[in-house]
């Protein structure tokens, strides 16, 4: 039994049990996100996907759809709030796009572009964070980690391993691994889903380098979210309701 609600005035249909993000994705409406991934249970940490539901802020990745709900997504106020969140992530870590191998395919960078981030207004923290290169195939660069827990969830839910977890709290919170000898002591493998799902350049396969030339990288072609929005054009071409 379908539920109907609106996103920015557009009618959207969904099934009970779906989240706002699930339904929006299917309908070809892009809600920006960083920690959410369709193959993983929602985490709710980045707060980039926050929408207004009947006037109240809720994370779209967690909030279930409800009949008749009025959801606001693409508004100047929400864009501004989301931009501030992304700026907070940039100044919290050490995100040097100019030499990062993930530049051009990085979701943090791509969302920042899409939200119109210019010069961050916040002071940079310049934290001292380590790089764990102990594993022969995978490197973990804490400088770039945004604590999205995709690796934590991916390792458990998809790889059926338990390589990653979180230690400490607050600003000292960081990824820890299941061996006292660093990533090299764990059963991490090159083709782990946990590694593939990292949205930024924190978890990377070694010896890949700058594999794709500038101009031909994923987000050089089109802004992040375009593949979701493409579904809407498709649906309306086929005369289907959104």
């Amino acid at each position, binding site marked *: 039994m379908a539920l109907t609600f609106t996103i920015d005035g557009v009618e959207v249909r969904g099934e009970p049990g779906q989240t706002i993000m699930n339904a929006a994705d299917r309908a070809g409406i892009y809600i920006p996100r960083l920690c959410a991934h369709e193959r993983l249970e*929602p*985490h*709710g*940490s*980045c*707060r*980039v996907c*926050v929408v207004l539901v009947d006037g109240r*802020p809720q*994370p779209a990745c*967690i*909030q*279930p759809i409800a009949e008749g709900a009025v959801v606001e997504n693409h508004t100047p106020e929400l864009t501004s*709030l989301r931009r*501030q*969140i992304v700026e*907070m*992530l940039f*100044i*919290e870590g050490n995100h040097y796009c100019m030499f990062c191998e993930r530049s051009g395919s990085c979701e943090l960078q791509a969302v920042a572009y899409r939200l119109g981030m210019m010069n961050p*207004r*916040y*002071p940079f*923290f310049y934290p001292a964070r380590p790089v764990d290169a102990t594993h022969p195939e995978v490197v973990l660069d804490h400088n770039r980690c*945004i*604590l999205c827990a995709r690796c934590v969830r991916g390792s458990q839910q998809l790889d059926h391993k*338990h*390589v*990653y*977890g*979180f*230690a*400490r*709290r*607050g*600003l*000292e*919170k960081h990824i*820890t*691994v*299941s*061996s*006292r000898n660093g990533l090299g002591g764990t059963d991490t493998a090159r083709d782990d889903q946990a590694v593939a799902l990292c949205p930024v350049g924190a978890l990377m396969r070694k010896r890949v380098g700058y594999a794709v030339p500038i101009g031909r990288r994923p987000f050089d072609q089109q802004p992040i979210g375009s593949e979701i929005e493409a579904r809407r054009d498709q649906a309306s071409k086929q005369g289907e309701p959104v």
Partner: protein
Amino acid sequence: MMDVLHDVHREVGHVSSDALDIIARELSITRVEVESAVSFYSFFAQAPRGRFVIRLCSDIIDRMYGVERVAQAFQQELGIDFGQTTADGLFTLAWTPFLGMADQAPAALINEKVVVNLSTDSAREIVKVLRETSDLAQLKFPLGSGNNRHPLVRSMVKRNLRQSGPVLFGESMEPGQALQQALAMSPVEVIDVVKVARLRGRGGAGFPTGMKWEFTRAAEGPRKYVIANADEGEPGTFKDRVLLTELPDLMFEGMTIAGYAVGSANGIVYLRGEYTYLLPFLEHGLAERRRQGLLGKNILGHGFDFDIRIQLGAGAYICGEETALLSSCEGLRGDPKNRPPFPAQKGYLGLPTVVNNVETHCCVARILQKGGPWFSKFGTPGSTGTKLFSVAGDCDGPGVYELPLGTKLSELLSLAGASGVKAVQVGGASGQMVAPRDFGRALAFDDLATGGSIMAFGPERDLLEIVQAFVDFFRDESCGYCTPCRVGNRLMQLGLEKIQQGRGGLDDLAYLRELGTTMKMMSRCGLGQTAPNPVLSTLQNFQSEYEGRLNPAQQRFAATFDLDKALVGAESIAQHKSLYFSSR
């Protein structure tokens, strides 16, 4: 997990890297899961600590009462700095944010022992005795009042019950009296009694208790849980400390009634680690009730089973948030949970759970004893009953006051001998700073809401310093799960420091307002949503305190630029002060 970690700390003093692997193996879980829990809580350690861990309270009230001088005395006597351990392995010195002793500050924990009204002399005496005897029991202090004198407590903590009211501290109640009334009705009728009383949660949020119980009763699950939130971490709140010491039986009775009403056989008291000194006394109280047939199987012959266990916390303010509390009970990091689902449907271990404050459970017992209409006679229609207020700071009578809800703040201040103060923080660090023009407002859920914390600040106090203390507190206590709170609290801290140091401009006030609004809208739980309150409420009610610190010259530079700091390196190399900026 928490119990295992507490045991390991009691025996060994810390959890080493080897121990992480051993515990993981014994519990059939992974090393990261153990490390995740150990590293989250302030009272746990992964490196060796001294035999005696001295935790000095860094709360603003303790600072007002001279804790910094006491800190220096400890540092001198021990020869170490905060965060360090003496070479002989006897002492570790640390700060802790709030002990629940604001009415008898300065206070400290020495392992589980609470010491209050510290002075530089008593600090030196403590070190001397422990060096000589290595035995905490050799520390001699006068016993406190009330049950602080009980053989299982034997604490110097004073009761400081300044005003009793008709509901909680009025006449006493025979154990089982309210329970008998409850068991003579159906569970639904019990919930009705609580609804007629219009009882609202006493922890600060004020959610209608009857409604919460109804949701939990209606939820499906093989088992249900009733939890008492005894985490009392909100700075300035110490009323549950007094309830747990003087009326724990009332709380146990209220929990049992809740169990009957919602269909639960399992109760948990989540007791903050700072109140470990009350643990033997509380366990004894539970044993007594079991002996009297008020806990356990077939209570009072009504075929109703219910028992309670006590879960100790380990130093994390966030664990006062109900879903973080649940995470902690489950042996995890104290991260709040995603909602929905809500605890009534999926709480502890995914089972229907009702979490109520200690004081709420005590009110329930009284309501079943004397009736819903009796309770609703006190207070106001929207905020029925009495409330415990814990008053501290610049006042003649710090302590606990039981007053009807709806009482004006000015009346409470008058009772506590705090009438001439210039500001009152109502609701703890997450509350609001109230100015004298608003002292006529009512202490009620729909006006000046508070879980009990009332902190009074006299005319000579620096309000920005007080606000900075609250901001520092949230920066340290943020669980770190979500971006706006984890990063935002640090940005708030830096922004306020800038103004305090005289480097702020008018733009910085607007910046703090916007940052606070972003945190309130985007944060995942109550901590991030209320952390901006001290700044936002003082910007609103005490704007002149900020304006008096603004520096128009600072407008020349970018918002985040600190000229002095930027010149330090160059001046050190050049071996002289900057010539160009010589007039700064």
